[in-house]
């Protein structure tokens, strides 16, 4: 059992409410870094000093927040209205168990039983604004005091492993956090490595923007968990990425064109080390790389991701070899990251 992944995914940290996950990560890295600090938004930024062989300043980012819910109102019947925090496909929420607020009150996102659905209701998807969380309170006064509007709700999913496949919540992006923690626990790099466990990615890449601004690195890598969509289709189209095919390398998404020199360095390193990799299908999506790249005077940046099925639902799935290869590849990419890869010389 991968205890690190278990601990990280079972902790809660809905965007802007990252304290629990931040404290956990801090305790996991404190003995392996030279300094750490928490900035005004809640980003955990650690410095692992290098050997001094290289004067590069390198940032590795992994967002620690996860998608979840926020309570907006307690209804008269004691159920809780809520808003999404981050993006959801509404139909994945019904029937899921959540824990609400600082006291982690258990609840379920209630659904009308199939027996009672009319024929037309069976064909419709229930909209998120008509869903309620049931915490077993008989009316509003029974719910008051246990929960309040503004409380966050996180999904409850126990981490499990089935062979090489791991199942749990929030692999997006605790898989990236776990990989970054493993890098910090290794031998020093030639350069100073700044690790940023960032907040509020799921609501618009907000934490990384200020973290990158304060660190002002020469180069940045973003560790992510990217949606795998590799179920069979009739047509000859590519999956976004597939589980078990290796680390997923970004080239272009909806908001970023990755630095081509870094992409080439990553794929070359993978080929040299015999690490499998896959180019994530260019097109949609977006990561912290977008804001890091455009920070201040610009930062060469690229993204390496663990493929994860069922992203932004209460249950995700990753392949543990993919995860191990992300750690291995990122480590190799960093150890061979020479300044000439990202510095430009005029001829």
């Amino acid at each position, binding site marked *: 059992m991968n205890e690190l992944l278990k601990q990280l995914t079972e902790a809660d940290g809905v965007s802007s409410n990252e304290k629990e996950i931040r404290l956990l990560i801090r305790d996991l890295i404190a003995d392996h870094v030279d300094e750490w600090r928490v900035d005004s938004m809640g980003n955990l930024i650690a410095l692992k000093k290098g050997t001094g062989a290289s004067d590069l300043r390198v940032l590795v980012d992994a967002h620690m927040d996860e998608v979840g819910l926020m309570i907006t109102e307690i209804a008269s019947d004691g159920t809780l209205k809520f808003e999404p925090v981050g993006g959801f496909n509404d139909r994945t929420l019904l029937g899921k168990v959540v824990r609400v607020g600082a006291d982690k009150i258990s609840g379920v996102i209630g659904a009308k039983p199939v027996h009672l659905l009319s024929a037309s209701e069976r064909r419709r998807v229930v909209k998120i604004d008509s869903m309620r969380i049931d915490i077993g309170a008989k009316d509003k006064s029974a719910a008051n005091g246990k929960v309040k509007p503004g409380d966050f709700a996180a999904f409850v999913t126990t981490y499990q492993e089935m062979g090489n496949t791991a199942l749990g919540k929030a692999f997006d992006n605790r898989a990236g956090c776990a990989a970054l923690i493993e890098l910090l626990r290794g031998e020093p790099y030639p350069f100073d490595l700044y690790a940023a466990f960032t907040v509020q990615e799921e609501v618009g890449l907000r934490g990384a923007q200020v973290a990158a601004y304060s660190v002002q690195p020469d180069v940045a890598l973003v560790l992510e968990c990217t949606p795998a969509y590799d179920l069979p289709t009739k047509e*000859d189209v*590519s999956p976004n990425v597939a589980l078990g095919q290796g680390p997923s390398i970004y080239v*272009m998404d909806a908001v970023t064109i990755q630095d*081509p020199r870094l992409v080439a360095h990553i794929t070359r390193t993978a080929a040299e080390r015999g690490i499998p990799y896959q180019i994530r299908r*260019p097109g949609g999506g977006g990561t912290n790389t977008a804001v890091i790249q*455009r920070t201040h005077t*610009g930062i060469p940046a690229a993204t390496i991701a663990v493929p994860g099925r069922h992203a932004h639902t209460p249950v995700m799935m990753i392949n543990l070899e993919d995860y191990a290869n992300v750690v291995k590849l990122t480590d190799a990419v960093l150890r061979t990251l020479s300044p000439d890869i990202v510095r*430009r010389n005029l001829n």
Partner: protein
Amino acid sequence: MNELIKKLTEAYGPAGFEDQVRDLIQPEVAPYADEIKVDALGNLIVHKKGDGSGLKVMIAAHMDEIGVMVTHITKEGYVRFTNIGGVYPRTLHGNRVRFADGTIGIISTEPLADRNKVNSLDKHFIDVGATSSEDCPVKVGDAAGFWREFAVLGSRLVAKSMDDRIGCVVAIEALKRLKETPHDVYFVFSVQEEVGTRGAQTAANALNPDVGIALDVTLTGDTPEARPMAVSLGKGTAIKVKDTGMIAHAGLVKLMRQRAEEAGIPYQMEVLEGGTTDARPMQIANAGCAAGCISIPCRYVHSQSEMVDGNDVENSVRLLVEILSKPIAL
């Protein structure tokens, strides 16, 4: 100038992959520059020093063009793709793309029952002459630009990527003609404009100019049934008042008009109802600057045959030189 226009417009440079364009521009500007550098995102920044009495002025013309990127290669060797920037499906069928290594591909589309309709982008594909995925010369993640030769049609000039290599040409020509200037002028040949004015943003953060002027193409209202717009090809350079991302600094607009009037340069006032330019990130970078845009009127923007008028290009160069060679009081 046509030789330079041909050279630059025929170069490969989709957003994010501007190296080949930069390598062509650099030797053109080097003899006239006091300092040249390339920043982290790939912007080429060319500094011409002033006499110390003027302002810090950033001129931005983007090197990148729209293009496509490979998303999938079928068993039969056909290439599926996504867009880089604003690619319109109706401009694709039968046209050609070129990859960084020179590989040419033909774009076609799945059959459509109604010939008057256009398929969406995902129903298009590129044929690079492969017979299977095994011998396909391109791979997922490769970028391509459109491929079309430059052509001269009287005073009209036609090419792919007139947007915005013609802006680059205007910047280069102005730099060459600018003998003396009171201003510290930074000519920025920017990257990734077509995907969201990304390069100019970091360049403006770094330079922190007092004045920012973008050089870019604008639409016209002079084709059959065109949306009304008081800009026509051949009627002069266009002074931008507003587009959907920026309202130009009123004092700068006034100064541009004044310089055009003084020098007898034909000009048109431009209000663009769709799109924006590198002037937007310049205007709101750091603590902000006085931003505006000199536009080159252009028909058929974001097609493989973008058309400008050579006289408008010349007048845009003249206006920029007039502005830069005299004091700027805002």
